[in-house]
């Protein structure tokens, strides 16, 4: 019995908790992608770099706060800087929309043209972020490191294995829940949110009933800026901030959005967790867990790691392929095909 519990603790410590935090970050990122897809009807390849931009600004403001001696007690200072990062990103994405996408909207261009334009925007943001903050790894986490540390947990329960919950992981989940709750309240209860959903469901009908498309698009970008910056900052707090890594996050984020069903916000959240859990579970060596769970004679010799962590992209990609092959509209019904 104690062995089973110990195994469970190892699994929770190395798989469940990190994957939950990662899943929340992916879900926020995928929500941004899915909203743009639903309202503006294209896959935004610049999303990863939008996240990087928001995070870069937040990191700079965090450093400024730290230099001024402003802190948020046990919580990371970056949370105080987050609104400023969101504001800057909002300016950026609304500016990009005015300068780039609005023209194609007027022309009623094909979605693929938007996609190529977003590649151009991606290039520009890539350069901009490197110009602002460079290419190096930046750590900007401060405040209390652990909510529960391994030692405290062991003392509390008397088990052989410890469980640690880092503050950043707890914050990630709490913030993600708050943001998602606010988003769904907005989409379902407010007039603007309802008009956004109407526009996403049927553009022509929405226009006929007097919805101003430019207003819908503006609100979409503002929400996307907030989601992208929050996702980026949470990811950066949890791991670290490196521009190229944010570009690479594009793949699991897209995978999450498609697995859940592009254009479906609920699906994006589910997709984020599906991708995160499978990525972590498949790349984690299960030897220690199985060591507790299996009888001694059957204990595995190897690491029982299905794939090395270098192939974590392969996991999200395989899930993506399976979903594309067997259920192209995603787990929840998206507006694909």
């Amino acid at each position, binding site marked *: 019995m104690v062995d089973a519990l110990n195994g469970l603790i190892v699994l929770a410590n190395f798989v469940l908790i990190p994957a939950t935090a990662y899943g929340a970050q992916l879900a926020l990122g995928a929500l941004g992608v899915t909203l743009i897809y639903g309202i503006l009807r294209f896959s935004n390849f610049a999303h990863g770099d939008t996240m990087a931009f928001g995070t870069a600004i937040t990191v700079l403001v965090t450093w400024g706060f730290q230099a001024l001696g402003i802190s948020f007690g046990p919580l990371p200072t970056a949370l105080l800087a987050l609104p400023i990062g969101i504001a800057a990103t909002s300016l950026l994405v609304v500016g990009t929309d005015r300068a780039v996408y609005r023209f194609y909207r007027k022309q009623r261009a094909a979605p*693929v043209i938007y*996609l190529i334009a977003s590649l151009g*925007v991606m*290039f*520009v943001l890539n350069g901009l972020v490197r110009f602002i903050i460079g290419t190096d790894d930046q750590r900007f986490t401060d405040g209390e490191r652990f909510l529960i540390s391994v030692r405290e947990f062991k003392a509390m329960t008397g088990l052989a294995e410890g469980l640690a919950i880092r503050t950043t992981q707890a914050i990630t989940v709490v913030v993600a829940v708050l943001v998602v709750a606010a988003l769904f309240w907005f989409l379902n209860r407010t007039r603007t949110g309802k008009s956004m959903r109407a526009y996403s469901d049927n553009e022509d009908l929405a226009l006929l009933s007097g919805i101003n498309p430019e207003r819908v698009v503006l609100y979409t970008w503002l929400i996307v800026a907030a989601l992208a910056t929050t996702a980026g900052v949470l990811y950066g707090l949890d791991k670290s901030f490196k521009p190229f890594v944010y570009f690479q996050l594009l793949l699991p984020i897209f*995978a999450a959005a498609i697995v859940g069903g592009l254009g479906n916000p609920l699906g994006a959240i589910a997709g984020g967790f599906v991708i995160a859990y499978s990525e972590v579970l498949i790349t984690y060596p299960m030897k220690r867990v199985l060591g507790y769970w299996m009888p001694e004679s059957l204990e595995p010799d190897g690491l029982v790691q299905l794939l090395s962590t270098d192939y974590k*992209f392969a996991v999200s*990609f395989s899930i993506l392929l399976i979903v594309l092959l067997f259920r192209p509209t995603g787990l929840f019904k998206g507006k*694909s095909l």
Partner: protein
Amino acid sequence: MIGSLFRGMTRRDLLLFAFVAVLYIGTAYVQSWNTVLGMVNLALISAIMALGVNMQWGYAGLLNVGVMGFVALGGLAAVLVSVPPTEEAVSAGGLQIVIALLLGAATVAAAVVAWGKMPPSRARGFAVAGILLVGFFVFRAVFDPAVARVEAVNPASTGYLGGLHLPVVISWPVGGLFAAGAAWIIGKSALRLRSDYLAIATLGISEIIIAILKNEDWLSRGVKNATGVPSPMPAAIDLQNDPSFVERVTAWGFDPVTASTISVKLGYMALFLAVLVALIWLTQMALNSPWGRMMRAIRDNEVAASAMGKDVTKRHLQIFILGSAVCGMAGAMLVTLDGQLTPGTYQPLRFTFLIWVMVIVGGSGNNWGSVLGGFLIYWLYIQVEPIGIWTMEMITSGMADGSWLKAHLLESAAHMRLLTMGVILLVVLRFSPRGLIPER
């Protein structure tokens, strides 16, 4: 024959080509011929990649955002074909690795067959999942020990199976075949869906190919780089030691060292140029044939084309494989030129998105446009950096030395490259969406 090569060219197009030529010749006078020949060789390879992407995007409207992966696969082919085999490693585990890979392939095939043969039911899902799971563990059980033995063979200098020791030029078509194989897998699963999905699927496969090249040391030494890909040209040092060569070039008044490196680069240039001309001829013929017209008809109106009895998905798969093969071939040529495979240098911004800028700027749907775009954008890509640094020095010249802002601005001038390429793409897409040499 020759007429079809230049079909549709106007005087304006020739002027554009002359302008690009002037850019390169001007650079030769400012910097050196040696530098410019190196640039021309890379521009030729980039132009071939652009031709491949243009076949997919320009003829058929397919969005391939994984060019880098196909290029890297071609590079792998160059290593596997040309380097000598590591005898010791091959005897240690070569056969076993091959068996393991065949087992893996058999597993997938069995799963596909089971899916096709069994009636749709819950049992079918479990059966297929079971086949895959068992197959995976069998594969790992055979594969892992063999890999460990191969990688243990002299890891500092080899530690991989090596290649077939054939002439490196053979690897160019082989690289095309490798890329075609990967394209077939992707195309089969993603082409029947909407265009965005193909983009995301290709983005994914390219990241995975790079991950494999970086981590599978038994295959191509991973990040330790597979060096020593033999050159199809005589080495510069041999030319310098060849008395008849030295005598000839000194008689013409050249420095033997410079002359030897330039001769080698000219040799590569001739080879690459031959490939490029052959490809342009083929693509021009194809584009102006009934097949090319059918492709464009499908691109412009899929519904109408399928109503006329054209199999849209099949044709898309065909052009997707062809275009990827061209990219793979260019990848093998690139590794031949470098003499080594360095997985760390494959950056999506350089090998995927820059090629896209070339195609869009040059003129999508026009083969000559892709070539022009390849040369023009490659020149810009290289020259933007010195121009950026120079501009930053001008801007910061008034600032106090040692100021934080000055240091930061000078340091980040190198990132101007990405910014400029993005702005060029956006500007061309908006104000001249048909590119410099539009489709005719």
